[in-house]
């Protein structure tokens, strides 16, 4: 009954009701869209970087994280990977090796960073196979092939199919092998396009004859976005002594810190938007409710009890809140849709900056962050109801006579 009355009251002043609901809705829309976009950006970045440059948990030679000394290697890596994999079913275990080396063509010779990878496994996680400008990605038996960046190809004056000689500069023992350029990539990062050379794990291992089956990193990944907390311990136990076992937050501190930083500044901004919208909603509701003092007096004179008035106003507040929330939810999702489906490509504005050695995808897509959406929606409903409290209780305490005189 009260709600019907409340509803009719709102309908009587369509413009004001719309503005009030609009304030709630507009603010909710902005918060939902912004959050979805920001969360999407971060999810993409973290997922891509973690998978491409590390893993949810990585096993590295002791002291590698600090010194990044390319001389440090894990011997017998296949056995280690196998042990870890069987102890942790459902995970993907990938091996990688990073060493410094030289690549030479008839025209030039350049110092480069050699990355030995497992072609099939790496294809699933790395962005480079998608950024190939010419040629093809490595295959399991491509021991004689390398993938280099376009800038490097230019410096060496080579193209697909040309021969190059790759040497590893490890402890003075120079070991070199001829390779063919199987593909060139363009990631958009000056550093990577000029210095990254990719080959199969076994090919790079051949360049290091003094260590058996070496790897620099055994990376453990799970298909979900976040790994369970138990993973770290489980991998560490399986690996045993003599290694450093790190979660990605420690293996990629730059990424982790950048995300922390961004989260902080986002929180500040969103927090402020929330405050602003609350006050705005409060303002709008308060005013629309306050100015109906005479009306309140009238109702009282007609027999409505003070508590009834309070309930009426609360009901109006609630309804406005609901309308506004629905409006905001719909609009918020509508705005999020193109952001999630098509995303926003800022490559025209900026060179892809590598973070932790992975060039970020400049095409950012949002994702639907339902947890945030629910939180914001409920919050706005509460704001609306809270905003109605003050005028509602005030209305309850009015003297009919005074009210009638006012206005």
């Amino acid at each position, binding site marked *: 009954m009260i709600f019907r009355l409340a509803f009719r009251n709102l309908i009587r002043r369509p413009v004001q009701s719309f503005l009030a609901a609009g304030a709630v809705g507009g603010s909710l829309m902005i918060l939902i869209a912004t959050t979805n976009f920001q969360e999407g950006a971060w999810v993409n970045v973290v997922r891509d970087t973690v998978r491409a440059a590390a893993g949810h948990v990585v096993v590295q030679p002791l002291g590698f994280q600090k010194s990044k000394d390319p001389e440090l290697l894990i011997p017998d890596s296949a056995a280690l990977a196998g042990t870890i994999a069987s102890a942790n079913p459902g995970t993907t275990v990938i091996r990688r090796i990073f060493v410094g080396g030289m690549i030479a063509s008839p025209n030039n010779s350049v110092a480069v960073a050699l990355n030995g990878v497992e072609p099939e496994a790496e294809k699933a996680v790395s962005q480079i196979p998608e950024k190939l400008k010419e040629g093809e990605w490595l295959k399991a038996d491509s021991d004689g092939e390398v993938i280099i960046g376009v800038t490097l190809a230019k410096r060496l004056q080579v193209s697909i199919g040309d*021969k190059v000689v790759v040497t590893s500069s490890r402890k*003075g023992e120079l070991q070199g*092998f001829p390779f063919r350029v199987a593909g060139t990539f363009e990631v958009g990062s000056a550093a990577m396009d000029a210095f990254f050379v990719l080959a199969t794990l076994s090919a790079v291992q051949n360049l290091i004859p003094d260590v058996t089956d070496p790897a620099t990193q055994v990376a453990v990944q799970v298909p979900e976005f976040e790994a369970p907390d138990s993973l770290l311990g489980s991998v560490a136990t399986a690996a045993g002594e003599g290694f450093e076992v790190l979660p990605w937050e420690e293996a990629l501190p730059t990424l982790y810190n950048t995300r922390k930083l961004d989260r902080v500044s986002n929180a500040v901004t969103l927090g402020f938007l929330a405050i602003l919208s609350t006050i705005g909603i409060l303002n709008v509701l308060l005013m629309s409710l306050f100015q109906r003092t005479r009306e309140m007096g009238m109702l009282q004179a007609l027999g409505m009890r003070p508590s009834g008035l309070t309930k009426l106003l609360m009901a109006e507040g609630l309804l406005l809140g609901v309308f506004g929330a629905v409006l905001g939810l719909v609009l918020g999702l509508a705005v999020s849709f193109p952001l999630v489906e098509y995303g926003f490509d800022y490559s025209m504005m900026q060179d892809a900056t590598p973070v932790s050695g992975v060039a970020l995808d400049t095409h950012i897509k949002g994702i639907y962050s339902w947890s945030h959406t629910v939180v914001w929606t409920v919050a706005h409903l509460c704001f609306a109801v809270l905003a109605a409290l003050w005028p509602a209780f005030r209305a309850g305490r009015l003297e009919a006579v005074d009210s009638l005189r006012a206005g």
Partner: protein
Amino acid sequence: MLCLALNVFFVAAPPVQAEGPSEAQLKALLVKVDESNRGEASHSVMRMSVKTKRYERSMKMEGWSKGTEYSLTRFLEPAKDRGMATLKVKDKLWNYLPNTDRTMRVPSAMMSGAYMGSHITNDDLVQGTRLSDDYTYTLAPGAATAGQKTIRCTPKPKTPVVWGYVDVTVTDGGVPVEQVYYSEKKVKVRTMTYSDVKEVGGKKVPHRMRFVPHDKPGEYTEILIESLKLGMALEDSLFSLQSLRD
């Protein structure tokens, strides 16, 4: 340094047999030459001239070598470089810098760098002969000049060299005339020419070697042997870090 001159990548073939030598024969020749050079000692005084886009230099050096594995070179001129020395033992290289009285091992990162500002890289100095396992040998196409043969050395798939093939021209008497390095795309990348052949210790040795990079027109590095003695007894201990300093 002399080992460089004679042995940069391949060794001059000794007398080549009649028309159409088989690959096995070419191969056998190179093996034989390599063995004959093993333990061969030399002592020489040379002059190296370098002309690049940026500068022109002329240096005088005295060098000792034993086979292809050991060599010691000391710089005599110009005055600024006097006392500098380079020691090669197998595939390791050291430089002695008198200015600072320091010995520095040339790290792998610097191997592709130029040697003393010339067109020859540190790597070139260190590369010994690569034998039959690494190359296949055929006669190069085209008309042959009388008294000379041009052998086309094509690296086998597993050989870690950047070249498509190298054409080595030698006289029938086994004296090197020219070495031309081609990329796989059949483009001439560099040429080494030998001339001024003189007889020393019963052998015919070219006394002038000229190295020309084709992608840098006008530039060259030339080595002139001013005096040469072969076949003396040289102690292995000569080729040590101590000698480097003296």
